[in-house]
């Protein structure tokens, strides 16, 4: 006897009878699927019948705060049987490598701590842990678990984080550079440790840093950043590298300046040569003034280290001699020695930028 089909029932013209028979047919089909038998065609075979896999369940995965949160929605079913779900994830969209398979569970909600992991997800389901339906990939594509945010941590939590970078600065004459490197010297990479994981971070040359300053360097996974204060490199996702006292530029090439005299007054200043490398105003002094008094140059305009203008200032008492000259000094701040220290060697705690002496290796 051929199995009863919906097509046969749909051929019945009586609407009420057709409706009742379709309902009975669907119920029987569900039971047959769930039990792996055919109630209208029982057999005497001793072989355990294969239980058909269940219909696909819906699922979604959301990553947040270093964990994957999985929500499964079972397909509509009336069979009173446990429904097992097996979740697996992999960085590979084809699931050919590094596949992590979670234990099969009837739970429809799961949380999987995996900080920093980005993965593809898939799901399959079964009534008996033997006969599974087809894998279905997470419809939203890859999911990033993210990292635990500071908001989810205790305030001032001691972080098991350190690094072994050396950091220093030097002047090239026109600019000041910062170097970040490992124990083998400039251009060698250095180790950074977070928890039980050690990674090697790139060495770096940071060119044109601010002279005569203290800077804090951090690394965001791709690039280094130079900031004035340590809190600026404590944002989530940034690895604090170290602080450095940046050297100053070398003594500038002094400018050559002639006073412009008119009837004994100094009415202006001619800049014959603007010099180079100035990081601050020059100290200008008038010499061979004769009877001149009280003249003083005005504000200096320095562009890119070159003196480009001097305001007339005070012209004096009108008794300056024709031989009056301008002597130049300064033009640069005091230059501290370069150097710095890593934020390693800190007993596993981040340190503040308090200027205390520390290891620089």
């Amino acid at each position, binding site marked *: 006897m051929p199995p009863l089909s919906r097509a046969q029932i749909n051929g019945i013209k009586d609407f009420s009878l057709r409706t009742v028979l379709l309902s009975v047919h669907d119920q029987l089909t569900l039971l047959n699927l769930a039990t792996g038998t055919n109630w209208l065609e029982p057999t005497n075979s001793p072989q355990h019948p294969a239980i058909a896999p269940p219909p696909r369940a819906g699922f979604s995965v959301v990553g947040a705060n270093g964990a994957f949160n999985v929500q499964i929605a079972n397909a509509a079913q009336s069979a009173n049987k446990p429904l097992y779900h097996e979740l697996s994830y992999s960085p590979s969209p084809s699931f050919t490598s590094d596949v992590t398979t979670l234990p099969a569970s009837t739970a429809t909600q799961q949380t999987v701590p995996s900080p920093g992991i980005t993965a593809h997800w898939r799901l399959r389901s079964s009534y008996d842990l033997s006969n599974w339906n087809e894998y279905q990939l997470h419809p939203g594509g890859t999911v990033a678990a993210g990292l635990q945010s500071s908001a989810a941590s205790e305030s001032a939590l001691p972080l098991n984080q350190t690094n072994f970078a050396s950091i220093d600065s030097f002047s090239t004459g026109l600019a000041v550079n910062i170097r970040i490197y490992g124990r083998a010297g400039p251009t060698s990479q250095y180790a950074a440790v977070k928890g039980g994981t050690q990674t090697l971070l790139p060495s*770096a040359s940071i060119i044109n840093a601010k002279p005569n300053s203290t800077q804090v360097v951090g690394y965001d996974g791709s690039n280094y950043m130079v900031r004035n204060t340590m809190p600026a490199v404590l944002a989530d996702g940034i690895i604090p590298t170290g602080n450095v006292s940046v050297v100053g530029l070398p003594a500038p090439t002094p400018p050559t300046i002639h006073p412009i005299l008119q009837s004994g007054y100094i009415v202006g200043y001619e800049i014959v040569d603007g010099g180079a490398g100035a990081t601050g*105003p020059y100290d200008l002094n008038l010499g061979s003034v004769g009877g001149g008094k009280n003249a003083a140059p005005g504000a200096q305009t320095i562009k890119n280290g070159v003196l480009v203008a001097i305001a007339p200032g005070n012209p004096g008492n009108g008794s300056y001699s024709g031989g009056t000259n301008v002597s130049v000094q300064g033009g640069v701040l005091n230059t501290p020695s370069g150097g710095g220290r890593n934020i390693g060697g800190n007993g596993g705690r981040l340190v503040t930028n308090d200027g205390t002496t520390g290891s620089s290796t």
Partner: protein
Amino acid sequence: MNWIVREGPEHNSIDGRTHVHHVHLVNKVTGGEHNIDLLLSAHSCPECQRPYTQNDLGHLDPAKEIKAALETLEANHAAIMAYAQRHGVPVVLGPLASLLPAGHRITTHGNLRLLHLPRGGATR
């Protein structure tokens, strides 16, 4: 050259928000990495703290900086490889290593990828 500027615009570009020219260098053989960051910032007057008006930043020459860094890194690479070959020591590779020079071979030990240099001969 074993050291090169990494391919892709993100590895040699200026961040318009932070005014930093980022250049990422990589060693194709060892996976070594070195960054060059040129700060395109205007310095401030130490007296009044007003930022100086920058001109065309003519004192910065990224091509020259990259060339100088590549030359240094390449020389260091050659020295390290010669040392490894002379003493028969394998070189642990980084994840960005992508080039296997002729005559070399790579083995894996756990999570480590090791580069074995040929016995004798040039190793660049």
